[in-house]
């Protein structure tokens, strides 16, 4: 019996090669897309869960809550927190802090600016990373010990054994310190929030003390150290979490208006928690993951709908077989088993094809997901089903289940036919049945919704990276001085390089959140307003094309524009942003011009001289479009600026950059230059939505292809089903265009119904998504009809070629068919 079924199925498949290929290819494509998304979800959910003992390791960090403002979340903690925790909680077995610096690293003639971390010796005892050589657990006990990754070993040592050999670190001007490679570990996988490649010991005399020294006298938090604790086996963190508030009250004096909160997070949860300041690597919003998972399911649903429709349409061609088998005594269950079995065969073939497609696509997929720079590990999504029998079994089971679900409808429909009706071909083919029509509508609704979602995400990403910044970020290179401000000679030399359009400086990046702040207010105010205080160069606003909303921009012609640290009593002109205007209670930017501010200085500080608002500038995102722009007061102080912004004109970029490097060698710091494009910063800041845009865009492309495949296959069956009708219409005088209109209208109607479903659903979902951004684009109601129109054009273009061929046929051919 099985052989008989198989012979019928395979020969039917061979007889309808085109539609069979469409069916299998569509299903395979849908499977492959869903499989890639599933593997990606698994990857994102697997961060930091593969190290031995990771369940006992927690990250400690601080969050500062202020009434009426968004909380200030940090991924780091004060250096003293670790010691106090060990004192108060015996369930903590060990702790380790880690912080980064940016020295120049050299071996012989090979030198690179590198991110070098300093970690306490317990770090690698707490987290045993896979080792190639040496012993990381003891390497940092030595003050000059260094742990490096495989990539770093190759970079500086080639094929030599690096163990015991030295590298030179230049952390300060003209001072090189040797470090010895005492362990080599594997390159970190993509699924970890750590991103180190070189780790030195905090026992070194040259370790940056600000991250690791504790200071009992301080009443401010130093937030440079990433702090981790490991609990004893069997212990839990519940007591620590419950006592966290009291812990902070015991050890740290309170500050008015600020409530610190101790965050204790298992390291496997770090990647999916909201990203704080000083994050080691970009995090992932769980909502994004579930969204992508949902979209992956929708893609599978699209593929399954195609499959169901085409299987049902094909089954309609086998109605005689159904009638014959029933008249020969087949029970309904026999026919159900036959058609379900065929569906499962299709699904398994599609599954094998999908497996091959995924293996071929994975390298490109990992590139799509990766940052694309050497500071961040590339994504390492893998699909090693031969090593994971559970995964292989789960996929097989999922495939069979899908085969049964997708094959169920045509199986049940066909097996339910009365033998007499089947033998007389008195059946409705797929596409004309209510279920078939509904499936086409659902398919088109999913396509329209995906088009809307992709367009909205694209618009918001473009806004966040462009107009939302409110600054001109085109061709801007940043370079930083570590130990000294940029000299005026350096700035002049840069400005004279051909290819450099403009140069300016500041104490932080133009969107840096790590700024100093102070409490200020209007002269008559008693309550302070916290203002960020970025220090900038005279031409900072002009460089970034920011125009004043009121007043003027800084100018050397005004003596009060320049801040002089040695003379704090000197009158000072400042510039404030729109948020500061609102926070200080001014009715408008113009109302603030000429107004004086006072500083709410501490009891031990001298009151400064008068501070007068000379201009008001637009808000521009200090952090990202996700967070509220903080009120800010800009102070001009060229002598104290260490972050240089260089705008290139875009022509002869390599020559211009080489000239910049040359100026650095002459007038910069002795270490290797550290420069990067401003775009890279935003790339990191919005990496999750950039990634979302890429993946969703790819999924949308897959959905379009699936929709086209399905519609094309249906158009073939529709034309076959209506052959007699077309022949009769042509005999009665219908032209080719009349017939084409008839066929194309059949595929246009579902788009209108699909729009009625997709518009409210996609609008609601995307509005919710946009609410995650403080600064955002409007939904753009015009997107909805545009998406529907796009779906309509896709549908018509897909079916028109075949419809034209059918419409042109001679009527006698159609009638002879009958």
């Amino acid at each position, binding site marked *: 019996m099985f052989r*008989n079924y198989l012979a019928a199925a395979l*020969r039917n498949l061979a007889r309808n090669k085109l539609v069979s290929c469409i069916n299998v290819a569509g299903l395979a494509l849908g499977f492959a897309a869903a499989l890639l998304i599933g593997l990606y979800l698994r990857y994102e959910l697997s961060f930091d869960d593969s190290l031995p003992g990771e369940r006992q390791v927690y990250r400690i960090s601080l969050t500062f809550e202020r009434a009426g403002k968004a909380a200030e979340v940090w991924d780091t903690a004060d250096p003293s927190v670790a010691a106090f925790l060990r004192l108060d909680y015996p369930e903590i077995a060990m702790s380790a802090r880690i912080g980064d610096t940016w020295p120049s690293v050299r071996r012989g003639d090979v030198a690179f600016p590198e991110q070098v971390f300093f970690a306490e010796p317990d770090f690698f005892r707490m987290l045993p990373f896979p080792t190639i050589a040496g012993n990381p657990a003891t390497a940092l006990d030595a003050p000059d010990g260094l742990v490096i990754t495989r990539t770093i070993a190759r970079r500086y040592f080639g094929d030599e054994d690096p163990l015991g050999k030295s590298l030179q670190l230049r952390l300060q001007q003209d001072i090189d310190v040797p470090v010895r490679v005492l362990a080599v570990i594997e390159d970190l996988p993509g699924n970890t929030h750590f991103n180190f490649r070189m780790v030195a010991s905090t026992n070194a005399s040259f370790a940056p003390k600000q991250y690791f020294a504790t200071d009992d006298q301080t009443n401010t938090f130093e937030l440079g150290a990433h702090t981790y604790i490991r609990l004893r086996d069997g212990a839990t963190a519940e007591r620590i979490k419950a006592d966290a508030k009291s812990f902070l009250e015991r050890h740290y004096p309170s500050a008015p208006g600020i409530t610190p909160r101790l965050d204790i997070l298992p390291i496997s949860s770090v990647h999916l928690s909201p990203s704080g300041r000083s994050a080691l690597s970009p995090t992932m919003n769980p909502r994004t993951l579930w969204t992508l998972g949902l979209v992956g399911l929708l893609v599978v649903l699209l593929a399954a709908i195609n499959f169901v429709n085409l299987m049902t349409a094909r089954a309609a061609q086998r109605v005689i*077989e159904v009638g014959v088998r*029933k*008249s020969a005594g087949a*029970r309904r269950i026999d026919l159900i088993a036959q058609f379900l079995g065929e569906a499962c065969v299709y699904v398994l073939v599609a599954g094998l094809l999908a497996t091959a497609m995924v293996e071929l696509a994975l390298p490109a997929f990992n590139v799509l997901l990766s940052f694309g720079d050497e500071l961040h590990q590339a994504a390492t999504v893998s699909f090693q089903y031969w090593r994971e029998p559970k995964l292989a079994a789960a996929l097989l089971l999922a495939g069979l289940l899908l085969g049964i679900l997708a094959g169920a409808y045509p199986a049940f429909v066909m097996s339910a036919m009365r033998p007499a009706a089947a*033998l007389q071909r008195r059946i409705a083919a797929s596409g004309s049945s209510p279920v078939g029509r509904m499936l086409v509508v659902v398919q088109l609704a999913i396509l329209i919704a995906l088009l809307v979602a992709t367009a909205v995400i694209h618009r918001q990403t473009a806004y966040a990276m462009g107009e939302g910044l409110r600054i001109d970020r085109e061709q801007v290179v940043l370079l930083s001085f570590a130990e000294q401000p940029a000299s005026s000679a350096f700035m002049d030399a840069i400005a004279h390089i051909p290819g450099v359009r403009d140069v300016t400086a500041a104490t932080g990046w133009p969107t840096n959140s790590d700024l100093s702040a102070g409490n200020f207010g209007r002269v008559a105010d008693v309550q302070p307003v916290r203002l960020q205080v970025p220090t900038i160069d005279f031409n900072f606003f002009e460089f970034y094309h920011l125009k004043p909303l009121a007043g003027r921009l800084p100018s050397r012609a005004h003596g009060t524009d320049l801040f002089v640290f040695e003379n704090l009593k000197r009158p000072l002109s400042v510039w404030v942003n729109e948020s500061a205007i609102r926070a200080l209670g001014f009715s408008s930017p113009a109302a603030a011009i000429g107004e004086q501010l006072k500083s709410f200085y501490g009891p031990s500080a001298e009151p400064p001289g008068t501070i007068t608002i000379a201009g008001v500038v637009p808000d521009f995102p200090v952090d990202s479009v996700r967070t509220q722009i903080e009120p800010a007061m800009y102070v001009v102080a060229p002598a104290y600026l260490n972050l240089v912004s260089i705008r290139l004109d875009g022509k002869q970029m390599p020559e211009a950059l080489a000239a910049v490097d040359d100026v650095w060698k002459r007038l910069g710091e002795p270490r290797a230059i550290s420069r990067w494009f401003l775009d890279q910063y935003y790339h990191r800041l919005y990496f999750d939505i950039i990634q979302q845009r890429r993946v969703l865009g790819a999924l949308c492309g897959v959905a379009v292809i699936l929709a086209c495949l399905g519609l094309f296959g249906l158009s073939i069956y529709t034309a076959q089903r209506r052959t007699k009708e077309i022949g009769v219409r042509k005999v009665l005088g219908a032209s080719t265009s009349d017939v084409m209109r008839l066929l194309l209208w059949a595929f246009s109607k579902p788009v209108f119904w699909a729009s009625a479903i997709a518009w409210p659903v996609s609008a609601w979902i995307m509005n919710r998504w946009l609410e995650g951004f403080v600064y955002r684009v409007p939904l753009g109601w015009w997107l909805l009809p545009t998406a529907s129109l796009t779906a309509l054009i896709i549908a018509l273009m897909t079916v028109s070629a075949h419809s034209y061929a059918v419409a042109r046929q001679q009527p006698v051919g159609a009638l002879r068919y009958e």
Partner: protein
Amino acid sequence: MLTLDRIGKVYRTTEVETQALNEVSLQIDAGEFVAVMGPSGCGKSTLLNILGLLDTPSAGTYEIFGENVSAYSEAQLTTVRRAAIGFVFQSFNLIDDLTVEENVEVALLYRSVPAKERRARVAEALERVGIAHRARHLPQQLSGGQQQRVAVARALVSAPKVILADEPTGNLDTANGNAVMELLFNVAKAGTTVVMVTHSLTYAALAARTIKLLDGRVVSETLLAA
């Protein structure tokens, strides 16, 4: 053996109601060769479908082999049909994707016949109708007469008690039609009950009894002179 008592069949759509059969009563005994004649649309095929349990009557009772099957479910009808009835259709109704021997085998697949015995019986049936040399061919590779022989073989292979033939020669030329009729005649002579719908008086004359239908009713029954 087959007893129809005031059988009626109505086909209903949303707008039209067609009375295909109206108060048809007749009895067919075991081993009889019966021809059913009448103009197009008189209900001949409908009568055959009801006799063969391919369709259910709207009114009346139908007893087959002493069982009243009028109210049987589809599953029960399948069981009875499987055990006792073979079919030959005007348009052959062979499965295009199966070879000749696979088509004939279909009649045995649902009767729990072991594979070895199935093969033997299929070979014998093909031999009987003279088409064994085409066993591995697909239907589209055969002529109409050859296809109908395959259909007859399929009807015979399960050794049914009743063969229902709906215009078995309707799509055949005279020579092929004669050949198929000869097969059916020999089957009837061997003791199988044969009920055949035909337009041909010549072929009807081969039957022991001819029933004429008009507008869904039996209008006459003629016995062949002995």
